[in-house]
C-alpha cells in the first residue's frame, strides 16, 4: 500500500514528531473506499501541510497528525500510504 518512491520524499509515518511537511502524493489505490473517503473528508490532499504531533503509547500507533487546522488520529498503516516532503523551518 506504500506510495511509489520519489526522491526527497518520505512516508508520513517516518516523519519526526513536530516536523512540518507537504503532502506530495497519496496512494489512494492502496486504501479501501471508506478509508480513502474519510481521509479526504479530513482534508488530506496533495499540497496540504501536515505535522505529526503525538504517538499512541503502545507500539507508537496510532499517530495524531495536524492537517490544515484540524488534528486527526490515523493508524501507522494508513500514514504509510502518504508521501511527504519535509519542510525545514
Amino acid at each position, binding site marked *: 500500500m506504500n506510495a511509489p518512491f520519489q526522491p526527497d520524499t518520505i512516508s508520513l509515518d517516518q516523519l519526526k514528531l513536530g516536523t512540518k511537511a507537504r503532502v506530495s502524493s497519496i496512494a489512494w489505490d492502496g486504501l479501501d473506499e*471508506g*478509508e480513502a*473517503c*474519510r*481521509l*479526504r*473528508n*479530513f*482534508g488530506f*490532499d496533495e499540497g496540504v501541510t501536515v505535522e505529526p*504531533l*503525538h*504517538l*499512541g*503509547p*503502545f*507500539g507508537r*500507533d*496510532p499517530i*495524531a497528525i495536524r492537517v*490544515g*487546522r*484540524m*488534528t*486527526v*488520529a*490515523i*493508524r501507522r*498503516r*494508513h500514514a504509510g500510504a502518504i508521501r511527504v516532503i519535509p519542510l525545514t523551518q
Partner: protein
Amino acid sequence: MNPLPLVAVAGSPNAGKSALFNALTGARQKVGNYPGVTVERHSGRLVLADGRPVELVDLPGAYSLDPASPDEAVTRDVLLGRQKGERQPDALVIVIDASNLDNHLRFALQLIELGHPTIIALNMVDLAKRDGLELDPSRLSEELGVPVIETVAVRRRGIQDLQAALDDMLSAPFCGVHEHVKSDLIHLQRRAREIATAAVVSETPVRRWTHRLDAVLLHPVFGPVILAAIMFVMFQAVFAWSQTPVTWIADGVAWLSNVATSVLPAGLLRSLVVDGAIAGVGAVITFLPQILILFFFILLLEGTGYMVRAAFLMDKLMHGVGLSGRAFIPLLSSFACAVPGIMATRTIDDPKDRLTTILVAPLMTCSARLPVYTLIIAAFIPNTRLAWGIGLQGVVMFGLYITGICGALLAALVLRKGVLKGSSGGFMMELPKYQWPPLKDVVIGILTRAQIFLKRAGTIILGTTVVLWALASIPQAGPGQRQSEVSIAGHIATAIETVVKPIGFNHDISLALLPAMAAREVAVSAIATVYSIDSPDEQAGANRLEDKLHHRWSLATALAFLAWFVFAPQCISTIAVTRRETNGWRWPLFMVTYLFALAYLAAGATYWIAVAAGLGGA
C-alpha cells in the same frame, strides 16, 4: 393545519452543533427515531421574536454528503427531502467551527449548492480568537452568498442574532431545492481553502491550549496513567458522593412504607402496597444517585473532548484483541448502559469490528448492575479504609469493573479468532479542541437519564415487582411454613435452584433471577419483596436489606452472586436492541448463550474457590 416550519441544523462533527441546538431550544426537546433505521431524531421547538413557533431538527454530524455511516446517510436524505418520516426542511442552519474553516467550509459549500434558504453559524469564535485567529464574517458572507452569524453556542452568545436572521429567512418565499449535483470533493476542498484564506484577517501563531494539554494527556507515559486515574476517581466517586443522597431516599421510602402500613388495614392490599410496590420500587430508586453520578462523568468526558483521547490511547490495545479505538467510546458508554453503547457502535465502519463490539458491550458494567453490586458489597464487604481516600468497598467495586473489562477483551479476542475471523478495519478520528461543556447541557443530559430511569422504575420494575409479589404471596403459607417456598414463585424457583445449586445459589436467589431477566436491578427489588413477604412483622425501615442478607447468605454465595452478574445477560432491552442492530435473532441468541455460559462458569469457580478457602459458612 399546516405543520410548523422545519429548520434543520447541520454541520460537521465537533462544530458545536448540539450545543447550538441546545442553546436555541433549551430543555424543550424530543428524542425519537427515524423510521426503519436506528438513528435518533432530536427535535425541539423555537419561538421566533414575532411569536411564530418553528420546529428545529438536529441532524447527525457529517463531513460530506457522501455518507460513510447510517447517520450520515440520514443527514443527506433529510436535506434532499428523501428521508421517510421527515418533511423537507424550510431552512438550514449550517454550524461551522471558526477555527477549522478549511475543513468545515467544504461541507458548507456542498450544502449551499442544494439551494435551501441557509444561514451559517460561525461557531466557537472565542476559541478561534484564543488561538490567535481573527476572521471577517462579512467577507465570508460575501464569498458564500449567505448570511453568516458569529456565535459561541456554549456561552449562548450570538443566539439572538441567529434567531433574527431565521426570522427574516422564514418570511421570504422558498421554491424548493435543486437536485444534488455531486461536485468533486477535491474541487470543493480547494475552494473552501481559498475562501478560508480570504476570510482570515490576521493570524498570530500562539501555543494552543489543546496542544499543550495533549502534550500531557497523550504523553506515552502520563497519558495512560492519567486515564487509569480518571477511571478510578470516577468509580470511587460513584460510591462516595452518593452516600448522603442514598440515605435520604432510603429514609423517604421507609417513611412512606410506615405511613402506608398505618393507613391501610392489614391484609392483601396492604401487603401489595407495602411489600410489593414500595419495597420493590423503593429498593431500586435508591440507586438513582449512583447512576446520575456515573452519567455526569461520562457526559463530562464526552463534552470536554477527552473521550476521543481515551480512544486514541487505547487504540493499539483494542487493536490487539481485534477491535478498534472507535470501539472504546461505545464500550465506555456501556458502563452507563449497554443500550446506548450498542447504538453508538454505528460509528464503526467495519461490520465485523462492529458486531464484535456489540457482542462484548454487555460485559461492560452498566449502571443497572450498580444496585446489585452496591447491595452485596454493603452487606458483605467491611467498610475498611485501606489508605487515604481508598476504601475496601470501592476497591472491590473497581475489581468487578476490571473483571468485566478483561472478560470483554478476552471474549473479543476469542470471537475474532473464531466466529468473526477476518482482518480488522481502520481507526480514523478527529481530535477536537478541548472545551468546558456548559453546565446546562450536562444538566439536560443528566435529567434525561433520570427521567428514563424513573420511568423504568415506574413501569417495568413496578410491573415485575407486583407480578412477583402476587406469585410469591399465593397461595398463603400455613403456620410453620416459609411463604417463599409454598408460593407459586417458590415452586418455579425450586426448579431453577436445581440448576444453580452447584454454583452456590440458594432458593431466594433462584427466585430473584427470573424477574431479573427484565432488568438486572430488578434482582434487588425481587429480593427485597421476598424477604419483606417472608417476615411481615419486621418494620420495613427497621431491618435493612443488607442485614437480612448478611444473616442468610454465606460470603461464598455472595461472591458467586457478584461474579454471576458480571457476565449474565439479564436485560431484555439489551437483547432487543441487539436484535434491532443486527437485523435478526441469530446474534442476540448467540450473545445470550455465551454470556450465560460464562456467568455460570464464573459464579461456579468463585463459589468453589471461596468454599475451599473456608468462606462457605453463613
